């Protein structure tokens, strides 16, 4: 029985999970959830995810939500398929966790707000708060400065190989360089640019992008 992933391909958090499953060669079935019609807030879906968010994963009788918990679980479960994805030693694992926390707290908060204000709110007929966007963009530049410094010491965030910490950034940076028109944040920084080119050209992410274009 394949792993069921509930969520639209266009949303960042389901993309995070799909990228991980593809990296590990785990078969899945993507079951769309229509956010525009509020399907995620209906009782049927709330039974699966009490906060009414995507994605949810069902693996036979086992159900999980929160994309970063899901990727940690699968990277552990299928560790033999890619030993470096979540680290082989306690220290490596700790560094992956550290940079996953950085992504979740420092990076994601800014990207989420920018996407909400620049893309989602206008689509719903509301007004963008430009001051807030500018503030977030300024903070995001500072985060990228820290990444630039970090990536001058190692090729990837948690060490010299691709891990969940890098993977977790893929959906957010995709938004930044495309719809948000903020590609300069990546392109203007030599090490960040090299890193982005590396991680975004991985076959697993390219497959996610292929699905994105096929299903959108």
């Amino acid at each position, binding site marked *: 029985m394949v792993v069921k992933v509930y969520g639209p391909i266009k949303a960042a958090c389901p993309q995070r999970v799909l990228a991980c499953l593809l990296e590990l060669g785990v078969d899945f079935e993507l079951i769309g959830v229509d956010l525009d019609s509020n399907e995620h807030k209906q009782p049927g879906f709330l039974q699966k995810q009490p906060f009414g968010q995507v994605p949810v994963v069902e693996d036979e009788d086992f159900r999980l939500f929160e994309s970063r*918990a899901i990727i940690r679980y699968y990277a552990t479960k299928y560790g033999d398929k890619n030993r470096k994805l979540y680290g082989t030693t*306690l220290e490596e694992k*700790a560094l992956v966790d550290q940079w996953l926390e950085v992504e979740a707290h420092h990076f994601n908060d800014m990207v989420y707000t920018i996407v909400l204000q620049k893309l989602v709110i206008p689509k719903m007929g509301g007004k963008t708060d430009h001051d807030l966007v500018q503030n977030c963009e300024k903070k995001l530049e500072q985060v990228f400065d820290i990444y630039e410094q970090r990536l001058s010491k190692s090729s990837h965030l948690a060490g010299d190989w691709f891990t969940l910490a890098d993977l977790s950034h893929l959906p957010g940076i995709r938004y930044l360089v495309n719809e948000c028109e903020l590609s300069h944040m990546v392109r203007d920084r030599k090490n960040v640019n090299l890193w982005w080119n590396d991680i975004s050209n991985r076959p697993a992410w390219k497959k996610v992008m292929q699905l994105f274009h096929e299903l959108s």
Partner: protein
Amino acid sequence: MAIKVYGSMLSTATLRVLLCLAEKNIDFELINVDLASGEHKKPHILARNPFGQIPAFEDGDIKLFESRAISQYISRTYAGKGTDLINTDPNKAAVESVWMEVESLKFDPVTTKLAWELCMKRFLFGQNGDEDVVKAEEKRLESVLDVYEARLSENKYLGGDSFSLADLHHAPMIKFMMETRVKELFDARPYVSAWVADILSRPACVKVFGVPAY
């Protein structure tokens, strides 16, 4: 001493790490970082945490930041010592991990805003909190606590049958909230209220929170 924590008793993130160490009966040295004078933004702390935040952590050669990464490192590295804080069954550990994410991404942001409006603004600047912001954030917190109430009506702890990092990560901010008007929101939900009483009465919590915050 091999384990050093750079932080402050005023910081819930620092307390998160200290609680973890206390649960596991691990000795450590707390090196105070003086937030009031901006020490956390000085080069010697930036070298340990490039975001200029506390805590920073050291275990021999290992240097980490981000309290939730630190607590997971401690729990794995010292498994079998003191309280076990991550389930050994991978599926149960994954469920605990779900509720760790919930604390991190849903509970903490809302309560941090409430702490800022209800306490920090007065403490730092002598300013009153914005009542509209407080009301809005209280409403958000109530939605989260409603989910917790349903969860805890079926499970003794958030992660399942046993106390785990999923519960521990909440403790410092819950302790803070209990000293504000937000306490009512927790008291109004019987399962949440019982869970709060349970975790705050744990010997590790009594030990860590018993220390005056100055």
